[in-house]
């Protein structure tokens, strides 16, 4: 079964680059992946990384606590710029989550084998990104303790939510997305939790994993229904993921604000979401495979494929930028034309140019095979793309709101310390959750890796 590794990577042998390193058996994948959780000593680097991200999460708590004490006045928002960092960050985080669902659901339906070793942590990333995203609209409401008003519940006041409002659509889209992502992740985890239960040595670990595994025993009858349910969930998550960012884009495009009121928004938002999400998966995959020696599972083939998806979605986003421009000018609507001028020459023009450099120009390097196979370049590129995508949301939210129809309603927006503290705090929370996740749950699906072992050994016969 073991075949010599090709001496070096080159385009000619790319087809031969496996999605799984050679020589693996059911036992070796089980041992290696479960050992990260069960037996490997926790490294010093883990503690340092966790401590830093935990401190940043503390900063988030302080920022939110202060916000609850003083109100949204501590932020840079004003009238007319009511949507500042909170909405920028919300859209950014939700977008990042999209790659996880795309990898786990759409690539599953398309039977792409390379998804196997990256889907688990990509799904975890989705959940954590949705958790970070969910904070923002909630604290942006001003009176977050009344946020439950957005849910339809039989109140004694006899009032109900306004279902014609995109903001209520948002509530349903994001909460459905969070719930379905959690279920999809948990169903995928079920067999692995059983593995951890059976291999755990310490009693508390046995009990906790045992309860989570719910008595899974790998029965053929169970697998039979499990596979139906998993396939159906993948089929349901696929339209869902496309709908979520579309609904979020409707928050903008249903309004009549110049720069927002455009029909290209839903597909362009979805492409942007997948773009930033894949960038985030790369940002996580590269340190993860290095730290835990998972190069056999997350191979160069995975990174190469993800870079290609990034390049493709990046081009769709570039097309979106172009058409946004073209339609504004072609429409002849003077407010739309003026907005284009403001993006190019207004006070926030540097943000616009940085966004073009980050999102359109830099990723063109990914056409080169060498660049796609340079781990350091890929990592830096993924950070640049995510910065660019954040800038894109900033440009959309802030420029339109500072320059709408009437000069008397123009304004300026300047984020404050607390805006930054909240934003950086959510990044800290996200990283902290990732650290906890790789420590207590298998970051790669063990059951699916066994399937991959079975399939690759069949191919070689």
């Amino acid at each position, binding site marked *: 079964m073991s075949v010599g590794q090709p001496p070096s990577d080159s385009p000619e042998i790319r087809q031969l680059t496996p999605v799984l390193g050679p020589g693996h058996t059911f036992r070796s994948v*089980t041992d290696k992946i479960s050992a990260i959780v069960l037996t490997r000593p926790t490294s010093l680097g883990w503690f340092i990384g966790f401590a830093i991200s935990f401190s940043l999460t503390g900063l988030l708590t302080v920022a939110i606590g202060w916000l609850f004490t003083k109100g949204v006045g501590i932020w840079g928002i004003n009238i007319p710029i009511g949507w500042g960092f909170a909405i920028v960050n919300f859209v950014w985080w939700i977008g990042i989550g999209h790659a996880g669902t795309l990898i786990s659901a759409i690539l599953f339906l398309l039977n792409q084998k390379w998804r196997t070793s990256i889907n688990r942590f990509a799904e975890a990333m989705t959940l954590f990104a949705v958790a970070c995203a969910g904070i923002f609209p909630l604290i942006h409401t001003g009176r977050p303790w009344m946020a439950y008003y957005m849910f339809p519940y039989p109140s004694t006041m006899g009032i109900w939510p306004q279902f014609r409002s995109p903001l209520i659509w948002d509530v349903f889209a994001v909460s459905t997305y969070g*719930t379905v992502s959690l279920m999809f992740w948990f169903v995928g985890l079920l067999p692995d939790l059983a593995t951890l239960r*059976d291999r755990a040595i310490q009693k508390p670990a046995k009990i906790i994993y045992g309860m989570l595994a719910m008595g899974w025993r*790998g029965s053929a009858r169970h*697998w039979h*229904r*499990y596979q139906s349910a998993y396939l159906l969930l993948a089929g349901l*998550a696929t339209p869902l993921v496309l*709908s979520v960012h579309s609904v979020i884009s409707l928050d903008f495009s249903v309004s009549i604000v110049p720069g927002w009121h455009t029909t290209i928004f839903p597909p362009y938002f979805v492409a942007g979401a997948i773009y930033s999400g894949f960038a985030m998966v790369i940002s996580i995959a590269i340190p993860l495979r290095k730290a835990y020696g998972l190069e056999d599972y997350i191979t160069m083939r995975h990174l190469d494929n993800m870079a290609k998806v990034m390049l493709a979605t990046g081009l769709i986003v570039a097309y979106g930028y172009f058409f946004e421009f073209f339609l504004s000018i072609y429409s002849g609507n003077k407010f739309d034309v003026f907005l284009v001028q403001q993006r190019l020459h207004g006070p926030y023009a540097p943000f616009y140019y940085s966004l073009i450099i980050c999102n359109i120009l830099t990723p063109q390097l990914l056409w080169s095979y060498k660049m796609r196979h340079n781990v350091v370049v890929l990592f830096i590129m993924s950070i640049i793309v995510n910065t660019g995508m954040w800038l894109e949301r900033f440009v959309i939210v802030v420029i339109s709101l500072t320059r709408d129809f009437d000069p008397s309603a123009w304004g300026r927006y300047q984020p404050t310390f607390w805006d930054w503290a909240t934003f950086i705090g959510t990044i800290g929370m996200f990283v902290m959750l990732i650290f906890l996740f790789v420590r207590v749950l298998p970051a790669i699906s063990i059951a699916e890796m*066994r399937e991959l072992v079975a399939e690759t050994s069949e191919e070689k016969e």
Partner: protein
Amino acid sequence: MIQHRSHIYGVMGEFETPEKLIHAVQKLREAGYRRFDAYSPFPLEGLSQAMGLKRNLVPLITLIGGLTGGIGGFGFQYWVAAITYPMNIGGRPLNSWPAFIPVTFELTILGASLAAVFGMLALNRLPQPHHPVFNVPRFSHASADRFFICIEARDPKFHLLDTARFLQGLQAHHVSEVNDD
């Protein structure tokens, strides 16, 4: 030491490869065994057919969940917007159905997904804290790299020694009885 004779749940055999497991399942069915189950650390292609498992109820439950979510979601929005809490916005129709589509869509997906997951768990009778197969120490390998078959004592053809020998004849290792307590 007094031998405590506990009730026997069945006989279990261990197999090294998926192929041997599927082969054994086919032979068992040919021999007329019906009340048995196979255990594997990952879903095996062809095992469901070999076990003679037909279509399951999960897709139907999912469909019902999706329809309930969709119809219920739309109906609820209609009830809120047109009946119980009508709001006249510029004289536009109260049943402004296109505006209800996003929430209807999301609730369809939500209903179907909840039904798929909880339907699958309910049909599998999970969570189930204990099952007799866990009494066999080697069964912990069923979640790692080994494949198992357990023939239940309830099977009409079950006979402790004969069934155990039959399993051994199918290249099973570590054939052992499974106690029920």
